[in-house]
């Protein structure tokens, strides 16, 4: 019995059982207060989606040995595919965030499915230079049916892509069976 109390206390203290908010808390980090919208590409360090209450740091990632885009090491951060396009350049700037972690805690993109057309996404570099995007559509793809060539394209129209897990957990594959993909286009806010 004492062990049960200890385990329960441990789970609650690290947030695995979020009694206060019903498991809907969204991790956030400190945010710079000043920014400047720019033309041209930037190296992302922070991403912000006010409509979803997301403010988080960006990790630069590559691919795994299995050929998948790496996910962020910290489940409260967002990963940016550093071998692809940068925000502000042609092609897709691809970001991915966790849906949850092994303890059932909500990841940074736990509520990405609530993104709607017109929601704004702000991507900022370490100097406070910012690019602004607007959500244009969302899509859910089967894990093996996603149009990777289009999602990771490095030329053509500029687009921001956000990815997270979706669907059902497949224990044998240790992954979800679908991916939620949000597409956003740049907003030119400079007069």
């Amino acid at each position, binding site marked *: 019995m004492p*062990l*049960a109390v200890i*385990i329960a206390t441990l*789970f609650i203290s690290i947030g*695995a059982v979020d009694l206060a908010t019903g498991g809907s808390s969204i991790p956030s980090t400190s945010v710079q207060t000043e920014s400047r919208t720019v033309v041209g590409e930037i190296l992302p360090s922070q991403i912000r989606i006010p409509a979803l209450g997301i403010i988080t740091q960006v990790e*630069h*990632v*590559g*691919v*795994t*040995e*299995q*050929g*998948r*885009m*790496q*996910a962020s090491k910290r*489940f409260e951060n967002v*990963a940016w*595919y*550093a*071998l692809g396009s940068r925000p502000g350049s042609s092609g897709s700037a691809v970001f*991915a*965030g*966790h*849906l*949850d*972690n*092994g*303890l*059932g805690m909500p*990841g940074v*993109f736990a509520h990405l499915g609530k993104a709607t057309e017109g929601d704004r996404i702000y991507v900022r570099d370490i100097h406070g230079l910012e690019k602004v995007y607007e959500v244009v559509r969302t899509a859910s*793809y089967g*894990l093996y049916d*996603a149009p*990777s*060539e289009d*999602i*990771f394209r490095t030329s053509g129209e500029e687009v921001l892509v956000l*990815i*997270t*897990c979706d669907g059902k*957990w497949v*224990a044998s594959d*240790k*992954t*979800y069976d679908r*991916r939620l*993909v949000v597409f956003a286009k740049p907003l030119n806010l400079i007069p």
Partner: protein
Amino acid sequence: MKNQLNRIFIAIFGLLFAVSMAIPATASAQVTQLACSPGRITTTVGGDVELRALGGGPTFNWVTENRIMLNIGSVFVVDFDTPGIHVVHVTSQYQTAFCVVEVLGSTTNPSTGTPTTPQLPNTGAGSSLVYVGALIFLAYVFSMIAVSKKTFAYLSK
């Protein structure tokens, strides 16, 4: 003969004077702070990065997790075959500095050399550890019940 001896004495005196001047000059020479540049650099698997020691010298020891290069120059070219964060240390004159090399996985097909498109990432864990924790907890409960029964049986005797 006398002139030759004088020349020898002058030469020896000059040599001693030069050495005596050089010793304090060497001893008082400022030891510059050793640094590794660039402090952080990103590359891909198999991609060369050139690291440079600033300060220190004249020789440097470069150490990675699987290589030790002793008494070489201030420039060190290295590559890594695994993605991740790698730290390269450089030591010289009892000082140590380090560079951080972030190695990203390659998107090049090793057989064809052409770029490949990655698959979508795995961005969930499905609360899998909760089930593992629950199983461990249940195992613990059953083992405690078994121990209690044995203890009760022992005390009843």
